[in-house]
């Protein structure tokens, strides 16, 4: 017996010895002349490096640092040259020509030069994306290009007929399906990124599966890529703009419980950035040694809203027909619109500064502007932006008017089916708050909110798209720098709440949107969109609720140094950012934000001159 145990013990010792080999990575903090290194932990692993395939934010975040596109943005959101040095378009913005930067290089995972970046690389990239057999999930954006959709569906088989051409090595031309004044901002998407055609053909299906099966032309190279373990990015020495890359190494350590362990790792100085969950926020804000290292996180441009359904398809026991009659009464809708206390709903997620995330419009503020004036402040949207929709008196007035108008047509209390995703405890809590708050304010004689726990997987396909709701919290993210991107859910063909079925509607919203879409001059165009959005909200087809993001972080990065872009991938770039000596406190964050907003307004005004 002893003998056996001894053998086992020896084997174990060998195994341990074998794994502590010394091929360790270099450049750790102990070096002299200490390179800037940013370390963090993450829990959402990327599934691929193939930027031509993915549509996931965390994969954009990697790709954006490894490969450059034609354009990028500065910290105020103004377009800057990337791999394109200049560009022009025809009068109706349907043909765009780009001059490609000479001297930009493709390098391999060891930083060795492989080829020059040329116009054909952008053609090859788009060809890959629009070829349906490659299963690219951003192909739908690329269909803005002439015959893009036809090629994807197989109606056109010759890629020569698709609207992208390399006129010579350094001139690239896109021909679009129609007038697209915001096309430049769409180039911030990975589907318009270049790829070296020869390398792609050589690697085939394996492209982007490992750091070796990948070519780099961006600010960083992958030094290590071990999914569910670690990912290390090092500065690309041949990068065309390497002087603006200040952080030398970025180290991501995978941990499935990152949310739990990150704050502790940050305190021990083992990482430089961590999200601070609300569950421990209180303790952090009170502790002497922690309160100065935690700050708010920036918001993103996902817009959240409550949609009222005009095509209810839920179970008969909840009387969908009754809801349908009620929701077609404007006063009934307005009573919900003014009755919903959005702050109390937001407290379930953000107990400290709920108003930071509340949005009064569908299009978030700081998204687009006209000569420095924010889109949400254009008439008639301005009146909506500046007023809280929650108003007890108005809610009571509308309730009274609705009860009078609907007497005999509707059975009170009207059942309001409010589903939530059972996989999200926060959403479940919020739904309960909304139920109690609305029923208490408007009275149980008027409405009866019925919560419904939808499935954790496939929620949208099971609940929202088939219309199994009266009212639902939903969201939408932008795809390019134009207000039209926020109209998609509500126009005909949208899969949200079908406002086109509202009585007496006469396709009003769609007409307003169409009129705005054909206008090329930005100021006029935005005004028309503002009018359309104001109509949508004024009619209470939707109740704007919040924007995404927020939360709290402890971080040694300055969020106002990063590229600013509400969509696409450049906001994920580390380029231009440096590591702070100590983490920003919330006071510092607030004042930096104020300064940034002022500078941004000036920069935008200058840019539009």
């Amino acid at each position, binding site marked *: 017996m002893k003998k056996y145990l001894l053998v086992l013990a020896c084997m174990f010792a060998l195994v341990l010895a074998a794994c502590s080999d010394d091929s360790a990575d270099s450049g750790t903090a102990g070096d002299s002349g200490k390179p800037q290194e940013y370390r963090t932990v993450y829990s959402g692993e990327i599934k691929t490096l193939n930027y031509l395939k993915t*549509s996931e934010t965390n994969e954009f975040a990697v790709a954006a640092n490894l490969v450059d596109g034609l354009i990028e943005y500065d910290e105020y959101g103004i377009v800057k040259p990337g791999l394109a040095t200049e560009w022009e378009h025809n009068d109706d913005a349907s043909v765009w020509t780009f001059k490609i930067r000479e001297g930009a290089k493709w390098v391999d995972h060891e930083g060795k030069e492989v080829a020059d970046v040329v116009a054909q690389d952008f053609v090859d990239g788009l060809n890959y994306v629009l070829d349906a057999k490659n299963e690219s999930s951003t192909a739908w954006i690329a269909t803005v290009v002439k015959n893009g959709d036809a090629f994807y569906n197989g109606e056109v088989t010759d890629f020569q007929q698709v609207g992208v051409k390399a006129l010579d090595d350094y001139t690239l031309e896109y021909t679009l399906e129609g007038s697209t004044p915001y096309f430049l901002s769409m180039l911030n998407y990975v589907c318009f990124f270049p790829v070296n055609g020869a390398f792609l053909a050589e690697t085939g299906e394996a492209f982007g599966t490992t750091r070796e099966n990948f070519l780099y032309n961006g600010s960083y190279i992958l030094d290590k890529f071990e999914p569910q373990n670690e990912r290390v990015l090092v500065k690309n020495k041949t990068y065309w703009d390497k002087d603006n890359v200040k952080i030398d190494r970025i180290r991501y350590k995978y941990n499935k419980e990152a949310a739990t362990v990150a704050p502790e790792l940050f305190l021990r100085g083992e990482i430089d950035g961590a999200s601070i969950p609300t569950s421990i926020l209180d303790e952090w804000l009170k502790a002497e040694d922690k309160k100065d290292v935690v700050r708010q996180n920036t918001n993103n441009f996902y817009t959240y809203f409550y949609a009222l359904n005009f095509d209810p398809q839920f179970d008969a026991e909840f009387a969908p027909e009754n809801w349908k009659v009620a929701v077609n009464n404007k006063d009934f809708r307005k009573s919900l619109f003014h009755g919903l206390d959005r702050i109390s709903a937001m407290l379930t997620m953000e107990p400290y500064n709920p108003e930071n995330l509340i949005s009064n419009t569908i299009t978030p503020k700081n998204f687009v502007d006209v000569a420095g004036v924010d889109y949400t402040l254009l008439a008639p949207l301005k009146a909506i932006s500046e007023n809280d929709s929650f108003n007890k008196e108005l809610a009571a007035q509308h309730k009274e008017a609705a009860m009078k108008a609907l007497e005999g047509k509707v059975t009170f209390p009207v059942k309001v089916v409010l589903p939530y995703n059972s996989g999200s405890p926060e959403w479940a809590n919020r739904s309960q708050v909304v139920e109690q708050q609305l029923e208490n304010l408007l009275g149980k004689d008027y409405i009866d909110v019925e919560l419904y726990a939808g499935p954790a997987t496939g929620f*949208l396909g099971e609940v929202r798209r088939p219309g199994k709701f009266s009212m639902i919290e939903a969201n939408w993210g932008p795809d390019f720098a134009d207000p039209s991107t926020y109209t998609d859910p509500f126009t005909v063909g949208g899969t949200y709440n079908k406002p086109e079925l509202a009585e007496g509607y006469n396709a009003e919203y769609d007409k307003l949107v169409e009129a705005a879409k054909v206008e090329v001059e930005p100021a006029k165009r935005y005004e028309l969109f503002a009018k359309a959005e104001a109509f949508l909200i004024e009619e209470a087809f939707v109740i704007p609720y919040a924007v995404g993001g927020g939360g709290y972080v402890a971080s040694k990065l300055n969020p106002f140094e990063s590229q600013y872009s509400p969509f696409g991938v450049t906001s994920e770039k580390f380029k231009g950012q440096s590591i702070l000596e100590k983490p920003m406190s919330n006071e510092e964050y607030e004042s930096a934000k104020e300064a940034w907003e002022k500078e941004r307004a000036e920069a935008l005004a200058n840019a539009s001159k």
Partner: protein
Amino acid sequence: MLKYLAKRMAQSILTLFIIITIVFSLLRLMPDEGYLGAAAEKMSTEQQEVYLTNLGLRDPLLVQLKNFYVNLFQGDLGESITYRTDVPVVDIIADKMIYSILFGLGAVVLSLLVGVPLGILMAQFKGRWLDRLGTGYIVIIVAVPAMVYFLMIQMYISSWIGLPMLFDEYNPKSFILPLICMALGPIASYAMWMRRYMVDELNKDYIKLARAKGVTERTIMFRHVMRNAFIPMAQYLPATILFTITGSIYIESLFSIPGMGGLLVDAIQRQDNNVVQGLVLVFSSLGIIGLILGDLLMAIVDPRIKLGKGDSVR
């Protein structure tokens, strides 16, 4: 013996075939949304159809099943769809298996080295302070949810004795805490069973006879009691060792060990059919092999057992 093995193998292969076919069919009932990810919201219905057709999900179920088995016999488990796009499933599983085997075996060895002697000592000094101490430890391990003490170890004990919180393959020190965490549970169960079987054995007539004959306590313990007490433990040992491959879900995720723990859960959540099928195949095979090996090992350590006549020892 050979006849017995051949029969068991045939049964096993049939079982595997049934399991895989059921899992394969069930996976095809998953909602389409899961394959589309974030793009589901933005693609038109036509584009979604083109996408899903290209994934092969629009073929009839029997055609999909046929393709799967044809590839399987060529040793091809397919490529990952949503977990690590285009990477062969075999590569994914192989990479991760190494880490899980390493930690799993380490934990099995550690728990045998500590748990079995602890059980022996507890039996030997039954009712004394060591026995009470051991029992206390076992009760705590069984009663307190494992997550709680794993977190305590990672958060507090690590800083108290100055060990890293996360696993790093280049830092041998970072192996210590996860190994200890993995061994805590098995140590308790080995000690508990070992003690129980030993106490049972000690009360048997032949031991009383040996004592009466004046055989030394040492000989009784090591020659008779321990050997007989270890037989029931031996049966489950191969399965225990084999199942270390599947990894420990919570410990691996807590300490950032890139092993197999939770891979199945992840793959199911991401609806990666090919990875799920591959894993189900691996796990079911492991289970079946573990049981057969357990039977064989029993036959080896216990001469009274003859395989083949009454078949399984269970």
